[in-house]
């Protein structure tokens, strides 16, 4: 692993440095994945574990190929749930943060609700959502929305509040109105924090959708995993898991790219997500 960890960690770097570091990170990712697959294969060979407990990587790859249409069909369902959940959750989170920033009434009303919403394990609501909204798309989208709402709202709100006090003083002497200070100073300076929230959201949203599918669904990768598990088609279960992991990684990469576009001026460290 020493070759992988050789990249400098958590050090602010310039934009060009950042690109090189990202390339190194991607290479490291490939090395790690290849290592894990090799380890997986080694375990299968050495322990002679039966395929209905742990199928070999080759077998899973074959299933990925032969069941590609089936996997694609269910992946599309999960991707739709995740995308809708992301859009709605981010919109609600951003809206809440802005509202908390401008209104003390909203702070008094919403802040306890937000803390409470985190005190309740959101997963525990999955059966209720299914009970209320059925087996279709809606409860999955709601679960994904719920699970990402808090990290987005709290990260962005934190960023808005942490705007440089000196800059706000300067804006005051310039005679800036509250709304324009929010738009021209607080929001831009909170974009790096919003980026962190979005990165978390990209990882959480698929979790929310899949949990919800486990509880009750007739399609989606989570549903497919439960279905395959019940029929001891463990290779199909692994294949669905692979597709889910790939989707999540791709989403995270896309969101990270967007976050860098939003706040390219902020120093980036190579150690983080």
């Amino acid at each position, binding site marked *: 692993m020493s070759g992988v960890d050789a990249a400098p960690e958590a050090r602010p770097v310039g934009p060009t440095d950042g690109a090189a570091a990202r390339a190194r990170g991607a290479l490291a990712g490939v090395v790690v994945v290849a290592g894990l697959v090799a380890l997986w294969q080694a375990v299968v060979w050495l322990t002679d574990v039966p395929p209905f407990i742990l199928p070999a990587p080759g077998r899973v790859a074959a299933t990925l190929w032969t069941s590609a249409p089936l996997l694609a069909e269910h992946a599309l369902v999960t991707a739709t749930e995740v995308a809708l959940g992301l859009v709605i959750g981010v919109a609600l989170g951003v809206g809440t943060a802005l509202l908390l920033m401008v209104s003390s009434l909203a702070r008094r009303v919403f802040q306890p609700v937000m803390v409470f919403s985190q005190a309740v394990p959101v997963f525990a609501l999955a059966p209720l959502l299914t009970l209320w909204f059925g087996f279709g798309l809606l409860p999955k989208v709601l679960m994904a929305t719920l699970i990402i709402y808090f990290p987005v709202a709290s990260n962005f709100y934190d960023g808005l509040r942490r705007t*440089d006090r*000196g*800059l706000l*003083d*300067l*804006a*005051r*002497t*310039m*005679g*800036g*109105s509250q709304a*324009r*200070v929010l738009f*021209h*100073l607080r929001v*831009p*300076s909170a*974009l790096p924090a919003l980026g962190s929230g979005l990165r978390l959201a990209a990882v959480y949203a698929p979790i929310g959708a899949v949990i919800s599918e486990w509880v009750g669904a007739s399609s989606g990768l989570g549903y497919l995993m439960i279905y395959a598990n019940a029929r001891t088609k463990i290779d199909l279960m692994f294949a669905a898991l692979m597709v889910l992991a790939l989707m999540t990684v791709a989403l995270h990469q896309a969101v990270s790219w967007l976050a860098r576009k939003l*706040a390219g*001026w*902020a*120093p980036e460290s190579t150690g983080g997500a």
Partner: protein
Amino acid sequence: MSTAPGAELQGTILFEGRPLFDDIELALVPGGWTCLLGPSGVGKSSILRVFAGLDTGGSFRGRVTAADGLPVAGRVAFMAQTDLLAPWASVRRNVTLGARLRGERPDAKRAERLIARVGLAQAAEKRPAELSGGMRQRAALARTLMEDRPFVLLDEPFSALDAATRAGMQELAHELLAGRTKLLITHDPAEAARLGDRIHLLSHGGLSAPVTLPSPPIRAPDAPEVLEAQARLLSEMRSAA
């Protein structure tokens, strides 16, 4: 510009009910440099913030008046020790920030002219992180000029710069801020001796009688009167501490 009016502050600042220093009377030289010199933590910045109409964290008991009878707050431009440039915006957008915050259309030609006057014409599209400390303070100076206010409040704006850059910035600020009424907060006796029309020492005991020098600012750093005043101010600061 024509000479800006003077201004005066009378009173004290209370922190948790206790005055920070004895009641003071601080008069700003019309169109000139008034320097407030003193150790850290004595309340120099709080006085500047009272002039600017900003929150001091305590309460101000007294009054601030401008010689023309209009309020001072709302007519000040502000430069701080940090450049206070928005890190996401180019020099040009930083210089025109005030107009955008007031919902006005920025005067692009004026901005270009001022950016050129502080020597940043080649760097107008650069972000603060791409500039040196001295360039950033020049951008802040251009932004201050863009605001075109009669009162300019400077809170140790050059103290983080290296000595040579600082001397250059003092000269540039003196030239470009001519005619405006300036209050310069500094802990550097040499800076006060170069720039001050009137220099006050602030300690917990209150404000000293003004120190003035025979020649007008800006003075050469190695002029005998500057060196002499600098030495005198330093020893007064040390005996007041």
